């Protein structure tokens, strides 16, 4: 049992933090809210040249072959600094499934482009139901002479407007079980028939509607097994749960520091508001929650890293993140008083991301059911003793 970071983990954390503190101060975050691109191509270039995009990509493809824990720590720093960028979409939603399920040819082609050139990818899964379930996948892909034709509409596709490629979750057949008949396609964003429109969201993190009208995709652009693509979606979902939780954990930690500091400085009735028990005890509750979240994420990530991913822990991490991030932001603003509700204070910037972060990687009810599912086969120790 060891809660400390290894030396190289410390290093990654430190270099990410220093980079983002310098390159992405809160003024930059505010500025990018008004920029329809939603990210800073210059910062993106620097991130690429510093090797952040190749963080977990194998060396043979131009990456630094970091571990899952490294990525988790990196996401904490992204969350802490509220970095608006297509990093998650490119690396986690697309790069990782490419690494795990791609053919050698696909990996040779696409991974170095990510690691070395910072080509942006986007994952197109969500449709009208937006419930993370296979029933939601209606976008149709029909085969005709080694070429598929895609028709349908995807929602909340991250940074679609900047993406060079899409990973599109499509339905290639209708079966009894909605998990069957799903296939993933690598689609060049410049292909004819693709229309992208930005959905105005509170986080302004560039979620788009993407319409596919008779979009042609060669057969070789299938990722993984055809018809069995839900397996990849689930792989992405599990990683997303933990890594979005990491982002939320980092954000909540930062928000907490802001509020804890403010409570010592701000005076009412001639004393710091932190001396009011209602304020102080709320801070204590939040601290406990934030510590819990941090370690739940670390534990889930450690298990993935060790090659024994735990669906139960992944779900706990995300469910906890959903609860804690909202509470931290809501009470963080509240404890500030009126000034907390203004755009002047940083605390609000964290809250603007709550809804987006909560949806991605799954809402709380979804994860509660997933935890319960795992409990079905749980064997208590006291039964084992007999």
């Amino acid at each position, binding site marked *: 049992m060891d809660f400390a970071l290894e030396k190289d983990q410390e290093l990654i954390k430190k270099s990410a933090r220093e980079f983002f503190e310098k390159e992405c101060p809160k003024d930059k975050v505010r500025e990018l809210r008004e920029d329809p691109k939603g990210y800073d191509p210059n910062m993106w270039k620097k991130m690429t040249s510093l090797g952040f995009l190749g963080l977990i990509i194998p060396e043979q493809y131009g990456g630094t072959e970091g571990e899952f824990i490294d990525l988790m720590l990196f996401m904490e720093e992204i969350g802490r600094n509220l970095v608006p960028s297509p990093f998650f979409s490119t690396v986690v939603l697309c790069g990782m499934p490419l690494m795990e399920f791609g053919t050698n040819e696909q990996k040779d082609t696409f991974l170095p482009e990510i690691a070395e050139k910072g080509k942006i990818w986007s994952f197109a899964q*969500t449709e009208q*139901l*937006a*419930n993370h379930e296979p029933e939601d996948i209606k976008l149709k892909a029909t085969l005709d002479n080694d070429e598929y034709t895609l028709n349908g509409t995807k*929602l*909340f596709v991250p940074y679609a407007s900047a993406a060079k490629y899409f990973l599109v979750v499509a339905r290639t057949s209708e079966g009894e079980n909605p998990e069957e008949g799903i296939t993933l396609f690598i689609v060049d964003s410049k292909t004819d028939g693709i229309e992208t429109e930005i*959905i*105005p*969201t*509170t*986080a*302004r993190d560039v*979620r788009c*509607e993407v319409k596919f009208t008779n979009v042609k995709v060669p057969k070789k652009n299938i990722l993984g097994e055809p018809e069995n693509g839900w397996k990849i979606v689930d792989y992405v979902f599990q990683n997303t749960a933990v890594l979005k939780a990491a982002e939320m954990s980092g954000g909540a930690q930062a928000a907490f520091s802001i509020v804890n500091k403010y409570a010592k400085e701000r*005076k*009412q*009735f001639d004393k710091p508001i932190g001396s*009011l*028990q*209602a*304020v102080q005890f709320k801070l204590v509750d939040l601290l406990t929650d934030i510590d819990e979240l941090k370690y739940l994420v670390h534990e889930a990530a450690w298990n993935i890293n060790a090659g024994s991913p735990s669906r139960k822990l992944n779900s706990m991490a995300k469910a906890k993140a959903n609860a804690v991030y*909202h509470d931290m932001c*809501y009470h963080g*603003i*509240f404890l500030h*008083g*009126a000034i*907390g*509700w*203004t*755009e*002047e*204070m940083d*605390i*609000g*910037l964290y*809250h*603007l991301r709550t*809804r*987006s972060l*909560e*949806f991605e990687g799954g*809402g*709380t*009810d979804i994860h*509660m059911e997933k935890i319960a599912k795992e409990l079905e086969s749980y064997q208590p120790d006291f039964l084992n003793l007999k």
Partner: protein
Amino acid sequence: MEFQFGEKEEKFRSEIREFVKDNFPPDYFGHLFDEEMDDDAWDFAMSISKKLSQKKWLTMSWPEEYGGTGASTWERVVFGEEAGYWGIPGISMGISGTAWVGPSLMLFGTKEQQDKYIPSIAAGEPDGVWCTAYSEPDSGSDLASLQTFAQKEGDEYVINGQKVWTSCAHRARWMWLACRTNAEVTKKHHGLSLFIVDMKSKGLTVNPIKNFVGGHVFNEIFFKDVRVPANNLVGEENKGWAQLMTALSFERGVAITFCGRARRIFDELLCYAKEIDIFYKPEIRQKFADLAMDLEAAKLLAYEAAWKDHMGMTVIHEPSRDKANFDILLEKLTRIGTNMLGAFSQLDPLNKDTRWTRVKGAVEHLYYYCIGMAIAAGTTFTQKTIVGQFGLQQPKSY
């Protein structure tokens, strides 16, 4: 004991609904603070104010001589509930005209002041729009510590200082100002006075304070040698604290409007859940049941406070209890609501009419604005302090 409204009130409720049907666009949904934030919404609100005035509803609780109908508490309750439910705008004449400027002037104002300011409020005219300037950067919950100073010079007062969190200042024709007229006092709530200030005064600057979502409700106001005629002093000099407390007590009915507002969002969400066919799920059903119970309970408390008022009983801690109660309830309602909306809850609440918007944007709007409500007009903590001291007779806790 009786848990239903009388025929008169139910008839009045129907009339209000007819009014909404006749005067509002179909599928209208008025969000909190729309009128402050949006010019079109403001114009619409003013047109409604005028119509409400014609109906004699705008200032219905005022005595007839001032343009009211002396409406009963229960009629006011019904109006408040319906206003909340339908999002009827333009009911306040700024943030304070109908609620406490008018009534305070009736109590403390000179005949001249009454004749000059009250009629335009009752008429729902642009000239009757007010803002209220109490809070200052260093006196939030601690209102008595305010520092903006009015110095008497001949038949004028010269005002210097700064106010903050002044909602509607960018819409108002007049300001209802609390400031200090005597700095040499042993107790800080002595030496305060109330003034009427023309928003067009020289030396007065109104700067918008945008909230974190980007909406413009609040303002900060700077006074640089703002000259106000001495007869704009309301009531007695240096006796402003008592008048101010009286004025604050007029503001108490807020829980009733929240009742209507919360029920509307509940109704919309319930329809949505049935529409997208998730209402059969036990975890969804339990949440609706829980909310329905909370709403019913909170409504009963708001009614109880109104009933005490109606009976002429002293109402001190009840409005605070109800405000704190709703602060918490609205957060819960929007938390459950946004979870139900899932991905669609991330739609920008300032951009409500997109094809991706669900439930009229109501849930995400309230999700961000309910924090503001919990902070404004006495934070949840301030309210609990009032309940503790006055409702429970516990000692001071801060």
